[in-house]
């Protein structure tokens, strides 16, 4: 623990890097996952091939995925972002599709009253599905915080740097500091998004 308290500034800076890495990856992941999920709900045949590809990506170990990306994207921040965004797809798309699955009677009533497809999405499916959607974001966020620690291995920075350094220099205190900080981040993100979920479910 001594390392953590003596180098709070370093840990804080790496935490900020970690948050940035996860945040950017998550935003990009959402920008892909939400339209894909909407496409799946409108054209159900899109679902199986998309889920097939995403679940295949999900089964690749994260270290191996990063290794596969190096020849294409090189080392660094953006390579990690690509890998993390790919990982999040499975969780986000699945939950977003589930979130649009509101009671068919409600959707039929909405159609019958003369709501357009866009209005049904925005006025009915979005508010009703929001808690499920946020749950997906929460699970994806917590997963990415964990996987992002591995991204230090491809020079993407973040708390994984402490863990790798600690192992390399046989300095367990340093590795522990990185791990603890990552756990703390994950717990804070999880609790924060849970609160949001509960508020939206009401």
């Amino acid at each position, binding site marked *: 623990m001594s390392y953590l308290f003596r180098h709070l500034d370093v840990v804080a800076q790496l935490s900020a890097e970690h948050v940035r890495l996860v945040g950017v990856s998550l935003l990009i992941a959402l920008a892909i996952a939400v339209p894909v999920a909407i496409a799946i709900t409108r054209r159900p045949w899109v679902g199986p091939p998309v889920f097939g590809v995403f679940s295949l990506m999900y089964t690749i170990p994260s270290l191996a995925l990063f290794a596969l990306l190096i020849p294409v994207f090189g080392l660094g921040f953006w390579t990690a972002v690509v890998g993390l965004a790919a990982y999040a797809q499975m969780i986000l798309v699945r939950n977003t599709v589930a979130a649009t699955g509101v*009671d068919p*009677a*409600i959707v*039929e*009533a*909405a*159609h*019958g*009253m*003369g*709501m*357009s497809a866009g*209005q049904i999405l925005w006025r*009915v499916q979005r*508010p*009703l599905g929001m808690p499920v959607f946020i749950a997906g974001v929460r699970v994806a966020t917590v997963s990415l915080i964990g996987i992002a620690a591995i991204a230090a291995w491809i020079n993407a920075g973040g708390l994984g740097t402490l863990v790798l350094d600690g192992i390399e220099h046989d300095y367990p205190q340093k590795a522990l500091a990185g791990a603890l900080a990552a756990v703390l981040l994950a717990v804070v993100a999880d609790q924060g998004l849970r609160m949001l979920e509960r508020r939206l479910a009401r």
Partner: protein
Amino acid sequence: MTSLPTSRPISSAVPGLYRADAVGAPRGIRFDRVVKAYQPGQHVVDDVSLAVEPGRFVVLLGPSGCGKTTLLKTVNRLVEPTSGSVSIDGVDVSATEPVALRRGIGYVIQQVGLFPHMTVAQNVAVVPSLNGWPAERQQARVHEMLDLVHLPAEQFGARFPRELSGGQQQRVGLARALAADPNILLMDEPFGALDAIERTRLQGELIALQRQLRKTVLFVTHDVDEALRMADAIVVMRAGRVVQYGTPLEIIARPADAFVGELTGAGDLVRLLALMCVADVQLAQDGELPAGAAVIGLHADLRTALSAMLASGTTRLVVTNDAGAAAGTLTFEAMLQAARAAAEKPAP
């Protein structure tokens, strides 16, 4: 297909019921040779032609799977016919924009389909708000509609649907459907999920409401008693086809075939009596009233009259008019004769 074929006026499909307008566009809802097939050769709706006059309460009656709901949904284009056309006041609905069309047609379904994340007031205001009404007008309309269905806005407006009973939810569903003042109301087994007491109560309220509002109503049910009670006219359907279209009395008194007879319990004279009223019977004019005689109103139905005869142990009832004065005497024989006559010849 944009207009009705002139060689075959649609009103000919409904002999004795309605005459086509001589001038101007035909009013009301018209189905012209409507077919719906989800798979080739399997006609869920099979060549249906019907005319529904404005302000009429028409019930689509038949066993489940007979195509009545599918036919209903062709009116607001939730279902597109495979062939044939549906028109409203002479305008082919396939030429209209579906979203605009639906905002002008009230729609009530069995599962109600209230939006669980909106309050009762917000649910009722959905179509007015889609139509861009100013907030004050929306609010005034919500109050008016909730009063109409006996759920005062002060008490119920701020509640959420899950806080209401099934019957209350369907009242909100009805208020929501009526909020933008549509001329046409489509109701798909609206009371099917309610318990018997609530169902009877809501039927009564809908009858009273319809007397006041005079909407053109298409009402789907498989409940014969509900159909007989509510309908101005009943469309009996089987296997996608219209088997008979007539008033409740015609359907009971002169079923088109054995299927209709069995479905509606035709030949059940008590059911027939329920559809006739005291005023339909030739009353005897006896002069003075026997003291303590059983009394019945001129507008009571004959089933109630029969029940009164059985209860009082007589075959004669004193009939009173709206003012409470004696209008004559109803005899069992006259009642029997009227029922038999109705069963033998079509009602006027």
